[in-house]
């Protein structure tokens, strides 16, 4: 076996060998799973499998095999846990990088190989520790100079962001990483030289403070705040462990708080980070985009994880370095998170034990410093990506992508191993064991807190996080899994998903229905029915829970969605769309008995298939094509409600028999305005059919204000419609087309509301609620009805039958009326018609609204539509 050695084995060697074997087995399972992941995703084996990461795995296996053997030879008495822990962490990180982007994986493999070579050289150098101690000022100067060089020659591999790197050919070097470890060496050496003699805190601290301050300045000026905060933490803990003085912790804590407050006002970065930490939900697409996406990734992981290669960690920004923790959690779940946390916890424990058993003060402080560096850096970034702490950009040691970071971490681990080899049980030095205990307790409980926070996001808050609109995973899943079709009442397909798994696309076959059906688009979210019926179309609602669970478990995807049948009739819809073309307005037709929406047309409209090209222009278009005027349009009702008032007055028998007026006007400002010519010697009915203002005002007067508003309430004109139908396309165009002057007494209603109120005239006096989606089906002909909550209720005190017969039309088989509603800036023409009460076929009610067009046109369109409808449907 690769990790076995000589025949003689101490218990430590046996433990170590078993741990290495388990780590190798873990990575082997992960590698095989990752190889097949693309096939699982796409539901077919006919796909390119992943092979690249096997190179990484091979380098890992050979490299650690050699290091392990050499370590057995050179430092046989080392701590048995350090090497297995870092091997597992490195391997896991490496596979994650290959999974994210193979090119990161290859580069990291190269760096890992360099680390192995460095380790082998380091193991041969017997004088490594004394060398570090003796020339501490040289190392420090070199590191500071390198860090200073970034002021002048600094670049960034990504091209933007802080210039923290030095470029040597194609290699990028991050001097702050080197500075980190050198600062630890310097502090350890300095304190070891000074502590045994006398311990005067200020005297001791002055030179170290200067050095740490200088290092800090470089970082603050360079805006590398993650490393800067790490420096403060490192410095504090090392001095505390050396001195055992708690007041030092307090002072340092106060300094950090003060620095944070000052930094909040001076540095934009800190402000962004602190605000994103305190309240990420305020600006989830801007300032706190990273943290929100990170939390969603953790939520997606759940308990067991989505499986390596099966999640979507790529959507979290900088997933390869700063955000590698949530990337791993998404695919390995809460179990993985707890695993990582425990790995760091054991590393902390062993690090401190090594420090306590170290053979001299220098090695003791060095071991303590290294442990503090590794664990506090891990805590900073794990806490930052889980919203336990404000976000600071540091790498997760051993996991994250980055050569400098990996080399530094390996160098630190090498020092720790050498120190552990030199350890003794019997030390004669001053040891602040209480300080160690306190620091260890704080570190380990903070790590456990990270685990708890992961449980909070991944388990308790997971569902609400995953349902967020800025969770792109739903749309990614849509590219692999069939979303349900949307059909019309005759099973004509309106919307379906086309293409091959992996590149599925949603296609709306009737683009004129865009405003009603809406869209489901990765870049623009969801709107319309696609949004309100999403959970059914996605196969969650109404589906077998076991099916959902298995689908999520096996392939990290949602099951195939349900088809949905609408009450729309595509044939009639096309006629309506054609009639409304070139106009601005809407046309709604309901089944007067059931409330089923048969036609819902709005104009101008957009094309849900062409969002990418036109979204911005549609959004800024003054005619608001994204608005569904039938449901969202809030139009002044004018005297369009006259037919309802008439029905009430007829029931109360308080309608005077004499018609009110003999003359009329076409001037909208005139009190005698009529939308249509009432003819000579008109009756009450004739005046109402023509939409005459004065007769409407009289109806209002006879009924009284209270009665009228009561009537509006009963007929649903003042209550908003069901959300399933009125789901907006975009929140931005929620503004009504007609400017809504606060005209007291003017009723604003949507065409849909008007249609469902007037349905009473065609169904014998029942209120209906509009219904668009009628049934859903998970495959086959097994249709289930959507549960409907309200049954039609009889409206009291309405003589709808008589009202309908009074309003009987001469041009269509039923009743009708026209009307004009207006505000100061615009006007809208209504045309409302319905089948008579004794109609033998399907009773329908129709509402046409036209903005700023003639009343005649509204009447013409409505009449044509109505006649077409009664001829088409039985």
């Amino acid at each position, binding site marked *: 076996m690769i990790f076995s050695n000589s025949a003689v084995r101490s218990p430590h060697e046996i433990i170590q060998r078993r741990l290495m074997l388990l780590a190798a087995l873990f990575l082997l399972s992960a590698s095989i799973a990752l190889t097949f992941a693309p096939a699982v995703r796409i539901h077919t084996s006919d796909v390119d499998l992943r092979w690249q990461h096997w190179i990484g795995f091979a380098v890992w296996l050979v490299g650690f095999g050699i290091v392990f053997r050499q370590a057995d030879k050179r430092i046989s008495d080392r701590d048995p846990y350090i090497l297995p822990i870092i091997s597992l962490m490195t391997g896991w990180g490496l596979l994650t990088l290959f999974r994210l982007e193979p090119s990161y994986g290859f580069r990291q493999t190269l760096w890992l190989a360099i680390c192995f070579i460095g380790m082998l050289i380091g193991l041969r150098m017997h004088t490594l520790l004394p060398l570090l101690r003796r020339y501490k000022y040289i190392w420090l100067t070199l590191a500071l100079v390198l860090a200073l060089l970034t002021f002048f020659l600094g670049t960034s591999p990504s091209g933007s962001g802080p210039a923290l790197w030095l470029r040597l050919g194609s290699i990028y070097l991050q001097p702050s990483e080197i500075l980190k470890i050198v600062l630890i060496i310097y502090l350890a050496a300095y304190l070891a030289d000074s502590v045994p003699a006398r311990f005067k805190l200020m005297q001791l601290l002055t030179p170290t403070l200067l050095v740490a301050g200088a290092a800090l300045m470089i970082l603050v000026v360079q805006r590398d705040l993650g490393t800067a905060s790490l420096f403060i933490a490192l410095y504090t803990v090392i001095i505390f462990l050396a001195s055992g003085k708690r007041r030092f912790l307090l002072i340092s804590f106060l300094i950090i708080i003060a620095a944070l407050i000052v930094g909040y006002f001076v540095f934009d970065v800190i402000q962004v980070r602190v605000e994103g930490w305190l309240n990420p939900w305020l600006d989830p697409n801007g300032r706190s985009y990273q943290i929100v996406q990170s939390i969603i990734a953790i939520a997606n992981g759940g308990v067991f994880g989505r499986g390596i290669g099966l999640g979507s960690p790529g959507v979290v920004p900088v997933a390869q370095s700063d955000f590698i923790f949530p990337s791993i959690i998404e695919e390995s779940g809460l179990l993985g998170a707890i695993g990582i946390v425990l790995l760091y916890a054991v590393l902390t424990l062993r690090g401190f034990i090594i420090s306590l058993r170290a053979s001299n003060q220098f090695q003791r402080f060095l071991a303590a410093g290294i442990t503090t560096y590794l664990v506090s850096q891990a805590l900073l970034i794990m806490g930052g990506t889980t919203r336990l702490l404000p976000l600071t950009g540091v790498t997760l040691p051993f996991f994250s992508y980055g050569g400098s970071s990996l080399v530094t971490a390996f160098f630190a681990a090498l020092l720790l191993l050498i120190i552990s080899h030199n350890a003794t049980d019997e030390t004669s*030095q001053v040891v602040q064991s209480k300080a160690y205990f306190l620091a260890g307790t704080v570190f380990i409980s903070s790590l456990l807190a990270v685990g708890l926070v992961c449980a909070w996001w991944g388990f308790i808050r997971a569902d609400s996080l995953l349902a967020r609109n800025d969770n792109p995973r739903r749309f990614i899943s849509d590219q692999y899994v069939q979303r349900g079709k949307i059909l019309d009442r005759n099973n004509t397909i309106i919307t379906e998903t086309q293409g091959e798994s992996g590149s599925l696309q949603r296609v709306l076959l009737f683009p004129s229905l865009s405003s009603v059906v809406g869209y489901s688009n990765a870049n623009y979210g969801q709107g319309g029915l696609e949004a309100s019926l999403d959970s059914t179309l996605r196969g969650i609602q109404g589906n077998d829970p076991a099916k959902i669970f298995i689908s999520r478990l096996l392939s990290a995807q949602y099951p195939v969605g349900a088809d949905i049948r609408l009450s729309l009739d595509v044939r009639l819809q096309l006629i309506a769309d054609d009639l409304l073309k070139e106009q601005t307005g809407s046309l709604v037709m309901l089944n007067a008995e059931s409330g089923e929406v048969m036609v819902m047309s709005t104009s101008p409209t957009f094309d849900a298939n062409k969002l990418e090209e036109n979204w911005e222009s549609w959004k800024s278009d003054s005619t608001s094509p994204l608005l569904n005027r039938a449901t969202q349009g809030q139009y002044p009702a004018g005297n369009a409600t006259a037919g309802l008032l008439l029905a009430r007055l007829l029931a109360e028998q308080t309608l005077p028999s004499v018609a009110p007026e003999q003359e009329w006007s076409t001037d909208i400002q005139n009190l005698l305005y009529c939308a249509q010519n009432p003819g000579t010697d008109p009756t009450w009915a004739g005046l109402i059919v023509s939409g005459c203002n004065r007769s409407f005002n009289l109806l209002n007067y006879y009924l009284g204000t209270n009665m009228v508003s009561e009537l509006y309430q009963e007929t649903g004109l003042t209550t908003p419609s069901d959300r399933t139908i009125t789901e907006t396309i975009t929140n931005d165009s929620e503004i009504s087309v007609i400017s809504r002057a606060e005209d007291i007494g003017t009723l604003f209603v949507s065409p849909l509301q008007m249609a469902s109120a007037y349905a009473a005239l065609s169904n014998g006096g029942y209120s209906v609620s509009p219904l668009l989606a009628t049934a859903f089906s998970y495959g086959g002909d097994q249709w289930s009805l959507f549960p409907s909550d309200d049954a039609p209720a009889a409206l009291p005190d309405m003589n709808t039958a008589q009202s309908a017969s009074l309003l009987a039309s001469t041009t269509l088989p039923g009743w009708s009326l026209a009307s004009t509603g207006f505000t100061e800036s615009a006007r809208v023409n209504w045309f409302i018609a319905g089948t008579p009460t004794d109609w033998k076929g399907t009773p329908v009610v129709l509402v046409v609204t036209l903005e700023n067009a003639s009343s005649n046109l509204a009447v013409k369109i409505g009449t044509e539509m109505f006649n077409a409808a009664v001829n088409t449907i039985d």
Partner: protein
Amino acid sequence: MSTLLPVVVLILRILMVLTLYAFLILMMVTIWRDLKFHSHLLGQKKIPQILLYEDGAPETAKYIFTQNEIIIGREETCDVFIADPVISARHARLVYRNAHWWIEDLLSTNGTYLNDERVESPVILINDDELRIGKNILLIEIQALN
């Protein structure tokens, strides 16, 4: 193949969890055993009793210890608690190590003196040593092991 594959991958994922936790549990179990073993060793070690007399005080003011570490200081939690402002909170400690009792100054402000010499680094104690901490003098008596 395409229906079997997700199950195979699922088994591999379960294997990942199992190996990861086997790794962690193996570490914890062995660390725990190690700690138990060490504390057992420590418990088996015999420590010679050490007696501290306050100079000039009656015979009753003496301390007898059998533990391997004794802290002297002004703090009430110290094993030898002396309420004297000149003494640091944790002033010095006596520790049994390598078959000897050692005195070690805990970086106190005013220092610890053994037979009138300042204790800079740990020093081995013998019978009848005189320890001065502030103005207090403690006489040491170490019992021989049976």
